């Protein structure tokens, strides 16, 4: 394993080293030590490498990730994995707000809790949270799946489009145009595969599915109160 000491070489050097890894690099295992909450660690990666950050990170760790697997052996700051395209991010601790914002693909796994606006404007990413999530999560979620093994806060899925939400515990309130939906066999199957991929042991049948009622898709004056 290659070790990068962030305090010693600085953020630019850490990221430049990881960005320099080509598609076919044979140095696939990396660790970053002494992150000390720094921002933008390991953002913009685009190679099949595995990076472990030993400690907690600031804003935008693994932002716009492609292909890489990034493990955060600590807690993660706001906007972690924002606009992730592919690959996987695993957070051992808790995640702050805007986790996986606008993510297009790949997977984010949180072993602890995720704060507010988790999966905001998600566009295809799969997010699996073992604990709870905060308010306004998946606001304007377009596509992808948000799986919550604990509880969800206020206004889940407000103004959402085609994103799907699976919650095992309680939902404090649903946002505008977000409704409870029937769990059909294909959803149980999908949920099982998401939980498996996240490495989380939970029974899909205990979850409830939520998603868009599609009432706000085209403006209608009789819905004006919901806008």
């Amino acid at each position: 394993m290659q070790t990068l000491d962030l305090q010693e070489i600085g953020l630019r050097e850490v990221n430049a080293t990881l960005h320099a890894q080509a598609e076919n690099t044979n140095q696939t295992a990396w660790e970053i030590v002494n992150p000390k909450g720094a921002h933008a660690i390991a953002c913009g990666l685009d190679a099949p490498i595995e990076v472990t950050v030993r400690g907690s990170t600031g804003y935008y760790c693994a932002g716009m990730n492609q292909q890489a697997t990034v493990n955060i052996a600590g807690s993660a700051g706001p906007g972690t994995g924002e606009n992730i395209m592919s690959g996987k991010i695993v957070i051992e601790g808790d995640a702050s707000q805007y986790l996986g914002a606008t993510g297009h693909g790949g997977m984010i796994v949180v072993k602890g809790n995720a704060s507010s606006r988790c999966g905001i404007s998600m566009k295809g990413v799969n997010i699996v949270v073992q604990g709870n999530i905060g308010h306004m999560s998946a606001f304007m979620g377009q596509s992808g799946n948000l799986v919550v093994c604990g509880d969800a806060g206020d206004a889940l899925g407000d103004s959402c489009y085609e994103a799907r939400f699976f919650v095992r515990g309680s939902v404090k309130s649903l946002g505008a145009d977000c409704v409870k939906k029937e769990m059909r066999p294909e959803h149980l199957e999908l949920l099982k595969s998401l939980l498996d991929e996240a490495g989380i042991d939970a029974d899909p049948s205990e979850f409830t599915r939520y998603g868009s009622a599609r009432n706000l898709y085209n403006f209608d004056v009789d819905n004006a109160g919901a806008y």
Partner: protein
Amino acid sequence: MNSHDSKGIPHTTPRQSATFTQDVNSDIRRAAATGIYDIRGGGAKRKVPSFDDLLFMGASISRYPLEGYREKCETSVTIGGLHASNPIELDIPITIAGMSFGALSGPAKEALGRGASAAGTSTTTGDGGMTPEERGHSSKLVYQYLPSRYGMNPNDLRKADAIEIVVGQGAKPGGGGMLLGQKISDRVAEMRNLPKGIDQRSACRHPDWTGPDDLEIKILELREITGWKVPIYVKVAGARPYYDTTLAVKAGADAVVLDGMQGGTAATQDVFIEHVGLPTLAIVRPAVQALQDLGMHRKVQLILSGGIRSGADVAKAMALGADAVAIGTAALIALGDNDPKWESEYNKLGTTAGAYDDWHEGMDPAGITTQDPDLMARFDPIEGGRRLKNYLKVMTLEAQTIARACGKNHLHNLEPEDLVALTMEAAAMARVPLAGTEWYPGKPGTGY
């Protein structure tokens, strides 16, 4: 109409209200019939103090002019040299503003790229992401990073020559975007990751940051992802230009794009366009003041937009301290938007050439603000590009003509001292004297 009633008493002349004008009444009838606010494209149509209220003095005995065609008047500008290793070098200080693919057709975006590249300037993507035809035909392409992040992906980000973080637009400071269902073709839907035919509301705030401290971290992330190579612009609407410019610079912007209320939009509520934001004339000096107070004038570039139409506007913007301008509406008109040759078709849509602004409906007779294949086919991107190039060249020549007359060998050497104002309002906003006086309202030391 009889001039007298049946008893022989004369009628008074029918009198229209200055408050309830025919325009206002038609708005009320439209609202009553539909129950929804009016959405339209374009910028503020009301008359506001503008660059038309300023004049250049030209040379005289105390200042001598440069010889037209013989003595050079430079027009080049470098944008983003403060932090970026590859700043943008432009031959002319007139750039093409961000206009979304979705609002505009693919061929229209291509034409903007062709025209801008041929004139030695940059063009800009918009809400909806980067299209290959636009990237392919633009020698310098600025990639917009918007709240909706529609179509945003790191591969395109890395293909950009500069990144523009959009905080706001002059037509709608504090407003999000709107692309109504009728314009969502398969291609637009796919790029935006949404079902076809539904209204696409773009958020008004960025999903993963709020406020100036977060913005600084967002800029850091974008720089790290792009290796500190390309400039990062911050685009703000003309609302609080002194503070917004200050905060953008402190957050690490290489350039500030400032857009006044006349600035066009693809689709916004008419009430928003007409009643929110500051006129372009009013926002330049406070922004320049902010840059000067930070010691950053000419280091962080100021790009001004909102109703720029001619070389005179360009010269005035630069004399007040801008480094460059951006054009949206004027570029579309150069391509053929609102051309009277389509008058009979505009009439069918209940409008007339010059007034057509229902761009969101996707029925543009000129084939520019549409996704309809038949209408799009009317527009030739090569011819459009040629027309835009011509127009950009004319604007540049016009600005040079004025600068030479003021004795300037570079457009950047134009200065507020070259200008006077025709009205008190313009004098106060531009901080240049009322013509024939030494005074403007608010002039330090005058007590007014």
